[in-house]
């Protein structure tokens, strides 16, 4: 079981380190042939408009969309969540999300860096207390489709959830030093 981390840009190293600490077989994915060999993938935070362009120039958009549609388990955080959404508000007009996760996000919906924040999150089904949520120019989930199971909310807005094997977080579990969400993902999909 090999877990890939999309490594075009952003916080891919922190995800790879978290997964490796849990004993997963981790592979960085920058090229189509590297995507072929993975059994699950993490779509990290970063700058969503940059990653969106690099998906095209690296010829990863079509194969990644196909594999996600075919049920490749995935954990999409922050910019990764924006990439997966069916609808993006306040994005660039040429930004084309993969449309594999039925929800609507508002880019930078929590504001600029000045407004970025930490908050304790109560996560359904997670033992040992709240999870430290780190929100950095984070997207706001404004609508979720009927298949989405919400696992945590902040101010009444979904911030963590899953639609079958596609997990999403609008915050950054990879920056928290707390491995419980990565563990949950690995346990469920591996």
């Amino acid at each position: 079981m090999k877990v890939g981390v999309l490594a075009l840009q952003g916080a891919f190293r922190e995800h790879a380190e978290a997964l490796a600490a849990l004993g997963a077989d981790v592979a960085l994915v920058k090229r189509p042939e590297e995507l072929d060999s993975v059994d699950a993938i993490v779509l990290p935070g970063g700058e969503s408009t940059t990653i969106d362009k690099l998906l095209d120039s690296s010829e990863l958009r079509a194969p990644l969309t196909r594999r996600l549609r075919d049920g490749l388990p995935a954990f999409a955080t922050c910019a990764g969540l924006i990439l997966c959404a069916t609808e993006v508000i306040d994005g660039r007009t040429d930004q084309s999300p993969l449309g594999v996760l039925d929800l609507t996000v508002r880019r930078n919906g929590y504001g600029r860096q000045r407004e970025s924040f930490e908050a304790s999150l109560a996560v359904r089904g997670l033992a040992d207390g709240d999870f430290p949520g780190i929100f950095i120019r984070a997207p706001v989930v404004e609508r979720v489709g009927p298949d989405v199971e919400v696992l945590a909310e902040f101010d009444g807005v979904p911030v963590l959830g899953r639609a079958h094997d596609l997990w999403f977080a609008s915050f950054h579990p990879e920056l928290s030093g707390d491995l419980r969400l990565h563990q949950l993902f690995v346990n469920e999909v591996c």
Partner: protein
Amino acid sequence: MADERTTGTARVKRGLAEMLRGGVIMDVVDAQQAKIAEDAGAVAVMALERVPSDIRRDGGVARMSDPSMIEGIQKAVTVPVMAKCRIGHFAEAQVLQALGVDYVDESEVLTPADEAHHVDKWRFTVPFVCGATNLGEALRRIGEGACLIRSKGEAGTGNIVEAVRHLRSILGDIERLKVGRSEERYAWAKELRAPVELVEEVAARGELPVPLFCAGGIATPADAALVMQLGAQSVFVGSGIFKSSDPSKRARAIVEATTHYEDADIVAKVSRGLGEAMRGEEIGTLDVKLAERGW
């Protein structure tokens, strides 16, 4: 009642730097250039009135940009917007924070405002990036609260040699520190003029406690690939893009080369037909070395 949130924590401030990894931050002087940069895939833009090569040519005192110019750029793009304050000029930094810029660069490219002190960056909610030519300088800036370090290079020259020297100096000293014995760290701290706690942290981690990016002299996709292979985690490109003959194409090429820095076939592919690079200058002919500013 709203759920409780805490802004301006070290994790939140350093976290944005983590999000910029593997990307290109581009200097822009107006909204139109900012759009070109964002279209090309920049992870952030640096708003300033003149690119470093023009500051170098024009001389005089270089200051923080006009707020209306920064706001114009904030309106034009959705990526993070950075802006520069003078070294030690905490009032300019306060203005930039009030404007809502996403990162403040306390920069040697502007004329220093204080000959002994940098800004106390812990007092700010907005994160700061600072330049460094060696490990001691980097650790002093981190001690003052910088959340991101960029090797200085020599801005506005289009000459990569200083950037390479500064990166090799910082990363080489980290390697030496890592393999040294524990009692040597006190001597390192003295020699580097840096807090011993930070020296200990670097020795334990084998890297700086904040991301290390590279700036000052990057003009081609291969320049970006070079400094990324040396160990930079992202690149700042100043004059190198908008002083070239085809900024849009060169910007896209540098973005791709920064992602695929280990893949020479891709760097070769994107390097073709970019037109003229910025002219560039020999370091030995310069009247002013910007990298020597800062203490």
